[in-house]
């Protein structure tokens, strides 16, 4: 009997959290179009996360492209299809690896910091202080973070795509002996706008997922150091799982 009660308890908690999360998203959209839009605050936050994330985005791109070129060579050389390497590198990066790897890296870099910052604000009563200062925390905390990340991730993915292709180019030309002009021509000829845009749409969705989940985990964290730690872990784990699962459905959409 206790076992069944426990399952019931877990299910009730799960569905109540899901309901709370859906309400949270609906409030985000409600306040997004409210007259209190702190433009300066939004712009400042966008620039902060943009500048601080560039190094990690560049590293993700370059190493992904380089590894992709090497691994593709290992496979394609077995049936003399090495010439397909530029096509595989650019297609895999723009459609798949660019958005997913960037999403996962940004979830670890920015999502965790959003959750920790907001959870700390909650623990130290700064969220209550905002309310007493007539400031809606959706407008002040949630909107800048969600808007900034949703808009920044497509830019990051474009950077990862570009730097990744360059990484593949460096390895292919200097390590595998490809002709440099031919590599770039193959890459540009093969890539269609649809390939690039499918990755960009994924980036928008992943940016929204990371930011909204991280804000939610921070705002509804438990009190104390343990609460801040759990909020950070939950933000990264839930965002990552949602990125990977939604990636499948988005890929089906563009298949």
């Amino acid at each position, binding site marked *: 009997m206790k076992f069944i009660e426990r399952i019931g308890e877990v299910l009730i908690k799960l569905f109540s959290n899901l309901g709370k999360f859906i309400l949270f998203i609906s409030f985000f959209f409600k306040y997004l179009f409210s007259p209190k839009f702190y433009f300066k605050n939004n712009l400042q936050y966008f620039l902060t996360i943009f500048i601080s994330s560039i190094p990690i985005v560049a590293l993700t791109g370059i190493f992904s492209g380089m590894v992709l070129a090497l691994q593709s060579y290992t496979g394609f050389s077995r049936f003399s299809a090495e010439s397909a390497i530029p096509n595989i590198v650019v297609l895999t990066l723009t459609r798949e690896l660019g958005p997913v790897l960037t999403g996962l890296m940004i979830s670890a870099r920015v999502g965790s910091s959003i959750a920790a910052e907001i959870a700390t604000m909650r623990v*130290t*009563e*700064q969220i209550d*202080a905002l309310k*007493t*200062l007539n400031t809606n925390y959706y407008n*002040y905390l949630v909107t800048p973070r969600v808007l900034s990340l949703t808009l920044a991730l497509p830019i990051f993915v474009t950077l990862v795509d570009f730097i990744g292709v360059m990484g593949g180019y460096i390895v292919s030309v200097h390590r595998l002996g490809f002709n440099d002009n031919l590599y770039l021509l193959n890459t540009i000829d093969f890539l269609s706008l649809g390939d690039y845009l499918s990755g960009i749409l994924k980036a928008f969705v992943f940016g929204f997922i990371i930011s909204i989940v991280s804000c939610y985990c921070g705002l509804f964290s438990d009190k104390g150091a343990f609460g801040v730690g759990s909020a950070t872990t939950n933000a990264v784990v839930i965002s990552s799982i949602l990125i990977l699962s939604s990636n499948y459905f988005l890929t089906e959409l563009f298949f």
Partner: protein
Amino acid sequence: MKIEIKNLKKSFNENLVLKNISLTIEKNKSTIILGQSGCGKSVLIKIIYQLFSFDSGFILYDGKSEVDIDKFSMLFQYGALFDSLKISENIAFTDFINNKTNYERKVLSLMNDVGLDKSIFNRFPSEISGGMKKRVALARALYKNPKLIFLDEPTTGLDPINSDKINELILKVIRKRKITAVTITHDIKSAIKTGDHYYFIDKGIIQDKGDCKKILKTKNKLFKSFITGASIK
């Protein structure tokens, strides 16, 4: 502003924190709420401020159930200053966030009122001491000229000398500005010094109330043991 609270109840999940609270906060007076940690004092003032909802009972603000909470202000236990903003931006937060820039003179005047040196105007909260943080938080609470101020353990974490200075300051400010004050504290010395009336909460109900100047003459056993720190036999 006069506030009347009748039969207030509040629970979190199955934990009944406030069982039956009835009290009156008199206009332009300083009301002290005393009680052990976890007895629901902070919950009570957050309910009055409408930051929390309540299960049953009622609250009347000058005889009405609705109130413009813009008339209220709060000094939080640990200041609750925004770490990423400068001291001046913290004090003038409502103007700063709305891109108003002409707050410098008002901030400097408030800093002077609460005994802060103007050299910290552009510093961040992490660069000042605990006592200074309390003063900054008090200046922020006073920035919007409140009619009622809630003070959540204003002397927590301060040494006796700084506690006394903060008490003097609170007393000076609320008398000068004719503000109704509701203070939560464990500190009997602070209660006697800054309060007019007190309420003692234990186990979710008001156990004792009276004049702050007569706190030490209380006949209530629970409150006596709270004052002396001795357990009841």
